[in-house]
């Protein structure tokens, strides 16, 4: 009969500063996706706003045409 194996020793406690650049790759957060997402936000927000502005202009022009139809013809 074998004696029970001792539990593995826990890793030593972290008691010193480790610069982020020296962390293992698995612990680091990639910057590129965040940068690309931020740039996409700028384009998407502005594009959506320009589109809503264009849509409102189009509606105003439709109103103008409808109004022109209501007015009596110029003599």
């Amino acid at each position: 009969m074998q004696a029970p194996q001792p539990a593995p020793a826990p890793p030593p406690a972290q008691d010193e500063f480790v610069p982020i650049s020296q962390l293992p790759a698995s612990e680091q957060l990639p910057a590129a996706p965040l940068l690309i997402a931020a740039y996409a936000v700028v384009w998407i927000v502005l594009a959506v706003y320009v589109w809503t502005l264009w849509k409102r202009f189009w509606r105003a022009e439709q109103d103008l045409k409808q109004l022109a139809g209501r007015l009596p013809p110029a003599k």
Partner: protein
Amino acid sequence: MRKAVVPLLAAAGFIFMTAPIIIARARYESTMGLVQKIFYFHVPSWFAMFTAIGVCGVASVRYLVTRKPSADRLALSAAELTVVFGLIGLLTGPLWGRKAWGHYWQWDAKLTTALVLWLIFAAYNLLRRFGGPGSERLAAGVALFGMANVPFVYWSAHIWRTVHPKTSVVMTLGPGMRPAFYWSAFGFLLILGALLAARVRLETLRASIDDAYLSAEDL
């Protein structure tokens, strides 16, 4: 005004197309690295927002004093663009913060006052949309309240302890970073000018349609 919108939009579009190249060539910040490049459009979006707030506030004062509809139209247009550029700032900041601070959001003085300022102008727009007749004067008061909030946002990082960098960081940029920053800031201000001109034109068109409807009913 229509003639001004197209060249302004074209120039702003050109700057927006070329900005990523100039930003990519700018020097890396020593502690944050690549993610710091969000700075080149995060800060200019706040520049554009503060400029829009200034326009809205001054136009609101003018409207309250003179009751000129043109001043009200300018204030309404600038308030809408305040929300647009503020949204860009509020969305790009947390993406930078996720890497720099380890969190998307912190309820500290700078971030909270910026959010409150944005909410004030969101409220202005909701008031104009659903407030009915007479909401212009009330909205002008809200705009003044919002404008009075700007110094708190600007100096909050200096007055209170906050994770956000101080505003003096812009003035102390290294020479390798300045061209990208000023190019981007110029692009944002140009696109603000173009969109503001277009938005005012839309409001003027709507006002003339309303007047024409009233005249047609009298016939």
